[in-house]
C-alpha cells in the first residue's frame, strides 16, 4: 500500500479516518471491528481513570511527581494495539497507556511514580523498558534493539515513544539517522502534544511538521491525527508491517494535545490560556470514539457507567496493593548495581546499616 507515499509529509496532509463527530471520513470503513473498538474504548476509560487517580494520589502526597497521559490516550492505545507480544516498547515518561496496553500491570506503573524501583521491573516476557526521563535519549536504544533483532533474524519490531520536544535533541537525530542507514525495524512515534513543558511547538522547531523531519534521514514519515484511533492504528500497523518485512523505519507524528499539566509539578496557567485550549476540547479522543460507538449502538450512558465502575473498582484495588508494598530494603539500593556486588558496595552497605 502507498499510505506513506499518499501522505508524504511534504504534501501537507494529515492522515485522518474518524471525524470529530464520530463519523468516518471514507467509505472504506473502519480498520477495527466493533468488538475490538469497544474493547479499546474500555481500555481507554480505564486508562483515563487510572491517570486521574495518579494525579489525585500525588496531590494527596501518596505519589511523587507524575506525568499524566490525559488527552493522548489514542496515540498510545492505537499504536500499541498494532504491536505484537514480543515487540519491544521504549517509553518516555508519559506512557501509562502504551505500557498498560503491552501488559505492564498498573501496580508496576504506580510503584514507579511512588518512587520504588520495583516499578521499573517489567514482568518477564513483556518487553517494555522502564520510563526514560532524559528526553530524547531512548530512541537510540530502540534502534539498537531493532538492529540486534535484525542481525539475529528475529521478526520483531521496536517502538520508541517521545514528544515534540524530544525531536530537538541530538540523540533523536543520531537515532533517526542510524535507523535510516541500517534500515532497522524501529518505529519512532512522536506524540506532538503541542508543548514541551511551557515551550510551544512552534518555538521547538521551525520545521512545519515533525513528520517532515524524516526527510533528513531517508526514512518514511507521516503525520496522523493523534486523537483518531483508526488513523493512529492504521498508520502504525502499516509501519509495523513494513518494519517486520524488512522495509525499515518510520517516523509517525501523532498530532494531539496535552489536556493536563506537564507533570504534577507544573502550573500550565503560566503559559497557556483557557481560550488556547478551547478548540482542542471537542477533539478529546475519548469523546470521538464514544460518538462513533454510540452511532453503532455500542455505547450508552449505562455502558459508560458500568465501564467506569468496573475500572474504578480495579484501580482502587491496585492502589491498595501498591501502597501495601513495603519501602525497599537497604540491600535493594546496592544489590542490583552490578551482577555481583563489589567489595566497595558491600562495605558501603554495611556502613549504611550501621548508621541508619
Amino acid at each position: 500500500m502507498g499510505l506513506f507515499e499518499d501522505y508524504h509529509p511534504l504534501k501537507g496532509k494529515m492522515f485522518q479516518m474518524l471525524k470529530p463527530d464520530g463519523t468516518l471520513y471514507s467509505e472504506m470503513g473502519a480498520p477495527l471491528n466493533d468488538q475490538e473498538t469497544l474493547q479499546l474504548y474500555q481500555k481507554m476509560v480505564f486508562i483515563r481513570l487510572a491517570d486521574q487517580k495518579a494525579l489525585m494520589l500525588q496531590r494527596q502526597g501518596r505519589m511523587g511527581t507524575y506525568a499524566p497521559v490525559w488527552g493522548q490516550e489514542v496515540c498510545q492505545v492505537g499504536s500499541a494495539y498494532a504491536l505484537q507480544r514480543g515487540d519491544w516498547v521504549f517509553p518516555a515518561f508519559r506512557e501509562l497507556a502504551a505500557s498498560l496496553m503491552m501488559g505492564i500491570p498498573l501496580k508496576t506503573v504506580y510503584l514507579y511514580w511512588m518512587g520504588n524501583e520495583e516499578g521499573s521491573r517489567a514482568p518477564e516476557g513483556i518487553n517494555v523498558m522502564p520510563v526514560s526521563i532524559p528526553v530524547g535519549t531512548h530512541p537510540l536504544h530502540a534502534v539498537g534493539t531493532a538492529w540486534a533483532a535484525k542481525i539475529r533474524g528475529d521478526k520483531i519490531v521496536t517502538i520508541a515513544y517521545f514528544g515534540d520536544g524530544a525531536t530537538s535533541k541530538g540523540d533523536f537525530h543520531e537515532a533517526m539517522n542510524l535507523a535510516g542507514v541500517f534500515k532497522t525495524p524501529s518505529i519512532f512515534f512522536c506524540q506532538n502534544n503541542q508543548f514541551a513543558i511551557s515551550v510551544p511547538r512552534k518555538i521547538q522547531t521551525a520545521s512545519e511538521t515533525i513528520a517532515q523531519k524524516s526527510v533528513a534521514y531517508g526514512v518514511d514519515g507521516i503525520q496522523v491525527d493523534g486523537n483518531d484511533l483508526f488513523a493512529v492504528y492504521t498508520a502504525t500497523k502499516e509501519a509495523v508491517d513494513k518494519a517486520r518485512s524488512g522495509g525499515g523505519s518510520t517516523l509517525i507524528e501523532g498530532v494531539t494535545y496535552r489536556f493536563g499539566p506537564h507533570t504534577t509539578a507544573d502550573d500550565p496557567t503560566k503559559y497557556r490560556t483557557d481560550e488556547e485550549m478551547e478548540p482542542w476540547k471537542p477533539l478529546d479522543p475519548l469523546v470521538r470514539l464514544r460518538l462513533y460507538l454510540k452511532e453503532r449502538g455500542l455505547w450508552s450512558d449505562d455502558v459508560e457507567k458500568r465501564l467506569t465502575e468496573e475500572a474504578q473498582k480495579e484501580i482502587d484495588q491496585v492502589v491498595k496493593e501498591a501502597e501495601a508494598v513495603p519501602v525497599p530494603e537497604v540491600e535493594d539500593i546496592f544489590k542490583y548495581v552490578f551482577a555481583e556486588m563489589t567489595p566497595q558496595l558491600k562495605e558501603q552497605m554495611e556502613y549504611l546499616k550501621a548508621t541508619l
Partner: protein
Amino acid sequence: MARLNMVEAINLALREEMERDKRVVVLGEDVGREGGVFRVTDGLQARFGGERVVDTPLAEAGIVGTAMGMALYGLRPIAEIQFDGFLYPCLDQITNHIGRIRNRSRGRFTCPLVIRVPYGGGIHAPEHHSESPEAILAHTPGIKVVIPSTPSEAKGLLLASIRDLDPVIFLEPKRIYRAIREEVQEGAYTIPLGKARLVQEGRDVTVIAWGAMVREVLNAAEELKGDKIDMEIIDLRTISPMDVDAIITSIRKTGRAVVVHEAPKTCGLGAEIIALINEKAFLSLQAPIERVTGFDIPMPLLKSEHYYLPNPKRVVAAVKKVMSF
C-alpha cells in the same frame, strides 16, 4: 534589606545584573514565560523581553554550545540546564570547547559565561533529577565551579560568577532553594570566587562541606553541642579552584577532618580534599579523615532517597569516630 530564600536571591541577582549590564542574556528551557521550573527566572522575560530571556528548544548541548558562541561575541550569557541529570549532554561542549578556548587560542578568544544548574537530591524529585556531578566538573580544566549554601551567598557568588572572565558552572542546591530564608542585601555585592567561608570556628575537628550539605553539618553541630566537641566548619563555596589555604590552615589547627558530600564516594571531591591534606598537612593529622558521602550507586528513587543522602546522624558518627581515634 529583605528576607529572601535562595530562589528569590538568585532571581534578584539576575534582575539587578541584567539592569546593569546589557550584555547579560538568559537562555534555557522554560526560563521565559514559565520563569523556570523552579521560578528562578520568574518575571525576567516580562521585564527584559524575549530577546534577552530566551525559551530555547529542548537541547542541552545546543544551549551551552550557542551560549559559548554568544560569549565569544561579547555577550554574557547565563544558560540554565533544567536539572543536574541533564548536564551530561553538555560535558562535551564544556570539556572540549568551553574550558579550552582561552588556552588554545592563547587568550585571543574567551568565553565568560555562566551555566546555572539546579543540583543535588533531597526534594523527592523524579529519576535523574537529583544528581551531584561536581567532581567531574572539578576535574575539568579551564572552568570554575561554584556552589552556594545560603541565599545571600548565592547572590554574591552569582554576581561574581557573571562578572568573572572565565566560564563558571553555578550549581544551585535545590534542596535549600526554599529551605533557608535570610537577609539579602539589595544592590551589587560580590563574593570572590576561590575563597572558602569559615562558617563556624572551632578547635577540635574541621568539617568541610558545600551547598546543601553545609546545613546538614550545622544540624550535626547542633546535635553535638552536648558532647563538647568544638567543630570548625568550612563551606568551600568554590570547589574549583579550591581554597586550599583555608583547608590547610584549619587542619593545622584541628588535626582532624570530616568531608561531607552528596556525590558518590569514589573519586568524589572528598578524595581530592583528603589528598591535599595528605600532601600539605600530613604531620598535623591526628586521625584518618572521614568521608560522609553518597554511595557508589545510582541515586535511588524517592522511597529510598533517605538511605542515600548524608544526614546529621552520619556526620555526627564520623565526627565522633575522628575524635576518638
